[in-house]
């Protein structure tokens, strides 16, 4: 592969930095270590950046501080038990993790959940998205030095979590999806409460749009920072709002045929041509608003009927291989299940969004300045459990 101009410059700068470190300053290195316990990493991610003055010449990402070995653990559990594990991958939108796994198992079993269950699944999926992205909107502000948005975000996310809790009994880990349907139906009065909550979500979006996006400092710190061209993003496997912010009009909710309610809804996929940190923030904010409208439509069109298809008491999945991916709040999440007809999967490859989203960091951090590291980390938006699995 040809050496790009950027790489050549990075190499020269690194050599120069080494020479200075070793000869002039007589110190061991000029390495800036961010994390594993740093607020900007939202968990235990470690970024090691070698600096030339204020400029990053080389950066490496160290993960694995939270690796829990889920792919191995899935091999010794039964299908219904695995939802408990996958709940804890992206813990801010746990329900959304369960859905592709259950769909993959259902695909192999060739069963489909009844329409009402599909709708409730999609509603909870979108609520999980709103809960997750709401927090992103707040913490991105906090990472850039604006304290207020994060309080608003936590306040308004609570309303969504209350609605999720009212249905599933769990604020963070619902463990509510079952093969062939759902554990339970919606409680009485939930639809009206949720509609009220959706109104508040849109108010929150409007508020933050003015408060944060119109803010001059925020714009100065986010615009033109961490630009990712579309082809590079695709080759790194960037997905979700990160790739839509680079102008790729691709959303797995719209672009594939899944037994979920998205195909019945009227909604829009938002993209932004810039590919910078501001674009990523902007796309996510629009998506939150769009998701609240989708929930409204689904609540209006909720079909009646049962919430559970007839499945055997002991769930055995026929031999075969299936891949199902969905558009999760953080990006594309998929499960590749290899079944040999047993009670649990023979192999379950978990493709989580953040792992690929973060793998671009060494590329995108090269040549940036120290404060921009924080902006880029915040705007790429990752959940540690989703990187480390």
């Amino acid at each position, binding site marked *: 592969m040809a050496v790009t101009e950027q790489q050549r410059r990075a190499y020269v700068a690194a050599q120069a930095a080494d020479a200075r470190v070793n000869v002039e300053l007589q110190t061991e290195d000029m390495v800036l270590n961010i994390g594993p316990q740093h607020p900007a990493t939202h968990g235990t991610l470690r970024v090691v950046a070698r600096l030339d003055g204020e400029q990053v010449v080389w950066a490496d990402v160290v993960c694995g501080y939270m690796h829990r070995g889920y*792919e191995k653990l899935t091999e010794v559990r039964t299908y219904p038990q695995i939802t408990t594990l996958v709940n804890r991958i992206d813990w801010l939108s746990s329900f959304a993790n369960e859905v592709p796994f259950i769909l993959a198992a259902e695909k192999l079993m060739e069963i489909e959940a009844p329409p009402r269950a599909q709708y409730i699944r999609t509603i909870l999926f979108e609520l999980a998205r709103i809960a997750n992205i709401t927090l992103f909107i707040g913490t991105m502000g906090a990472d850039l030095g604006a304290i207020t948005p994060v309080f608003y975000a936590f306040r308004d996310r609570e309303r969504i979590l209350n609605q999720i809790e009212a249905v599933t009994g769990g604020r963070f880990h619902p463990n509510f999806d079952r093969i062939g349907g759902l554990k339970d139906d919606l409680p009485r009065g939930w639809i009206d409460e949720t509609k009220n909550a959706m109104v508040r979500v849109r108010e929150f979006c409007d508020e933050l749009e003015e408060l944060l996006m119109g803010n001059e400092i925020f714009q100065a710190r986010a615009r033109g920072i961490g630009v990712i061209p579309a082809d590079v993003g*695709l080759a790194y496997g960037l997905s979700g709002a990160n790739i839509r912010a680079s102008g790729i009009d691709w959303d797995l909710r719209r672009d594939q045929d899944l037994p979920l309610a998205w195909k019945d809804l009227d909604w829009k996929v938002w993209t932004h041509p810039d590919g910078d940190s501001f674009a990523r923030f902007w796309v996510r904010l629009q998506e939150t608003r769009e998701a609240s409208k989708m929930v409204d439509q689904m609540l209006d069109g909720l079909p009646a009927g*049962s919430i559970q298809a007839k499945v055997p*008491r002991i769930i055995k999945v026929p031999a075969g*291989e299936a891949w199902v991916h969905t558009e999760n709040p953080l990006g*594309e999440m998929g499960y590749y299940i290899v079944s040999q007809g*047993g*009670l649990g999967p023979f*192999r379950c490859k978990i493709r989580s969004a953040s792992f690929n989203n973060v793998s*671009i960091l060494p590329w995108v951090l090269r040549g940036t300045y120290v404060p921009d590291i924080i902006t880029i980390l915040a705007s790429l938006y990752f959940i540690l459990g989703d990187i480390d699995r």
Partner: protein
Amino acid sequence: MSSADTEEQEQQDAAVENDAAAEANAVRQEILDQLKAALGDAVVGEHIQGGDLWVRVNATDWRRAAEACKNAGFVYFDFLSGLDWMPSAPNPEDAETLSVEPEADADEAPDPEEAAEAEAEHEAEPQPSEAGTVAAFETAGGEPDSGWVTGVAGGETRFQVFARFHSPRRHIGVTVKADLDDESPAVASIHDIFYGAEWHERETWEMYGFVFEGHPDLRHIYLPGEFEGFPLRKDFPLLAREVKPWPGLVDVEDLPPAEEARQDAAINAAQEAEAGEGGS
């Protein structure tokens, strides 16, 4: 609406569904032909099912396959990982626990007929395959090509590397597999074709021990640097299970007959109500 009408409607729906499936598979066949034209003899296995496409290539042509996929429009990198087809019995108690009939349940059952029925149903269900595969493995004496199940698109060795690429324009994905050598699994790195593969190759290396030739920095990504062994290989013991069998297996026991009948009645009532609504 008469039942004949509904039947006709259902048949039509099924026909439409079949057409859609056939169309989806035809598109995949087209892509497969395209890849075959680009790769020639390198393609050794293929599979099209349920709107998904699998291609198995020679390990020596792994890089070429990745390039061909990228040229065919599969520019988005989903994942890269490994497969170990060695049959596993991570929890040997699985088979035993399940083959024991829940006698206590039969005693408690208020209706002997129901209990007998439940028992018959339980027996009729195929036993888990773990016991079978373990036996097959033992008789095979560790030979990978006798009696090992190797998934779709086939396979001749214990290890396979597989990757998935997606086309965000056509909304189609392809899974590419390659057989690797049992003793020293190695394959060319594709990190400069799909940049995202760099981390996935590091992960696959540490989990399966596959060596990716040409990878710039093959080191641990999740596990500590001094870690020994390859955890996702089937012969790597899961220590927690060695010490204590998985207690969660009780979860797959039959429900008490009364509770099962109650749940069945609820599901049937709901389905009848739905059918009634649809028919009127």
